[in-house]
């Protein structure tokens, strides 16, 4: 029965005398019945022993450079594909994690109800209670002029999130201001009326976004968006 063909390294080991007697016998048993492997061995053996028999041309620089370009471009493609695959995997993992742990992380915002309530204290002052995940937050909107307002964001248990919670105010995609909580609240001063969003993030992990409108007459109309 014909045995499995030895690989190139095994044949080279045979040719250069690096195999044990038992291994040699095993290889010889195969070579005796395999013309293909025997031919490889015979040609390589002659090549090693009497390559001077023929006048062989040395390789030209052009040929070597062409091979270098072929191989390195291939390596680069492989690395790029690897990076792409890696990014894809990370994205998938991130998405999977965000689905479980951080509903707001990921691509695009999906409207969702946010627990909260609105209290109109006066014509110029509205207080909202909004829940960003486990962070219960109070958002106070106080009219400061004919077209401006202060927005104060006060997380409950603020001490727990001191210097780790970042509060960002955006108008559309434009960031108006972003502060790290360093006291009991973060104040956005003299904000012109308009549509805004407030986002909370702890060490880079978003907890949620709340979008709302500050208007002159009703001051604020809020709706949750996560």
């Amino acid at each position, binding site marked *: 029965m014909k045995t499995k063909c030895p*690989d*190139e*390294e095994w*044949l*080279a*080991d*045979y*040719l*250069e*005398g*690096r*195999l044990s007697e038992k291994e*040699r*016998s095993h290889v*010889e*048993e195969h*070579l*005796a*019945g395999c*013309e*293909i492997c*025997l*031919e*490889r*061995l*015979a*040609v*390589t*053996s*002659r*090549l*090693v*022993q*009497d*390559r001077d028999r*023929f006048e*062989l*041309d*040395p*390789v030209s620089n052009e*040929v*070597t450079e*062409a*091979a*270098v370009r*072929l*191989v*390195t471009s*291939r*390596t*680069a493609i*492989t*690395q790029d594909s*690897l990076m792409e695959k890696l990014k894809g995997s990370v994205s998938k993992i991130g998405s999977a994690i965000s689905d479980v742990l951080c509903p707001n992380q990921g691509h695009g915002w999906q409207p969702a109800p946010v627990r909260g309530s609105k209290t109109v204290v006066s014509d110029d002052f509205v207080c909202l209670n909004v829940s960003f995940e486990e962070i219960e937050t109070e958002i106070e909107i106080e009219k400061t002029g004919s077209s401006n307002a202060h927005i104060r964001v006060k997380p409950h248990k603020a001490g727990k999130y001191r210097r780790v919670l970042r509060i960002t105010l955006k108008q559309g995609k434009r960031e108006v201001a972003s502060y790290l909580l360093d006291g009991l609240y973060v104040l956005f001063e003299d904000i012109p009326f308009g549509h805004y969003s407030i986002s909370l993030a702890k060490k880079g992990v978003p907890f949620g976004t709340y979008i709302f409108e500050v208007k002159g007459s009703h001051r604020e109309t809020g709706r949750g968006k996560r």
Partner: protein
Amino acid sequence: MNHSSQDDRKILSESLSGSSKASETLVRKFSNLVYQSVQYTLMTKHISFNKQDVEDLHNTIFLSLFENKCKKLRQYQGKNGCSPASWIRMIAVRTVLDHLRKKGVDAIAWQQRRINLEALPELKCDEFEPVGQIEKARQVRLLQDGIQKLRPREQMFIKLHFDHELSIAEVAETMQISICNVYTLKHRVIKRLKSHVDLIVKQEVSTFQKRS
């Protein structure tokens, strides 16, 4: 293991780690070895070729090392001390022979290359006179049957020496045995083959005589 071989292993290992620089160095280092191995294999097989053929095979060999995420390159282990140069040379020869076989070049050569009694002058003696009545093709078959009955090492010797036309010294180098041992091997092989052919011929002559 010499320093050069150790350096080569390092280059190979770095290439596998994805270093383009190391891959480049590897190609530059073995480019001439591969190029000349391709030329030699084509010449020794008596194949007519041009520079473009050699260049194509040269590039094919390097690509084969790096394709499929360096699948071939990863096969190198060097556990018995095989140098990357020896390994790559063997790959180069194999690639060229496989290429020729795919093109049908070698298949024809094999059909033409048959061991016959003329290739074994020692077998020609008076005892073989009855064989003269047997057709040449039958002699070849007889001899091939005899070769099949030889030990693996003996079969290897006879194929390398008579089929691949390696000299006694080249066979010794290939099989990693002394020249003296190769002569002993040759003597033993011829003796065994003669005995085999003699026995068969005698049996057939006896059968023929009984019939007549």
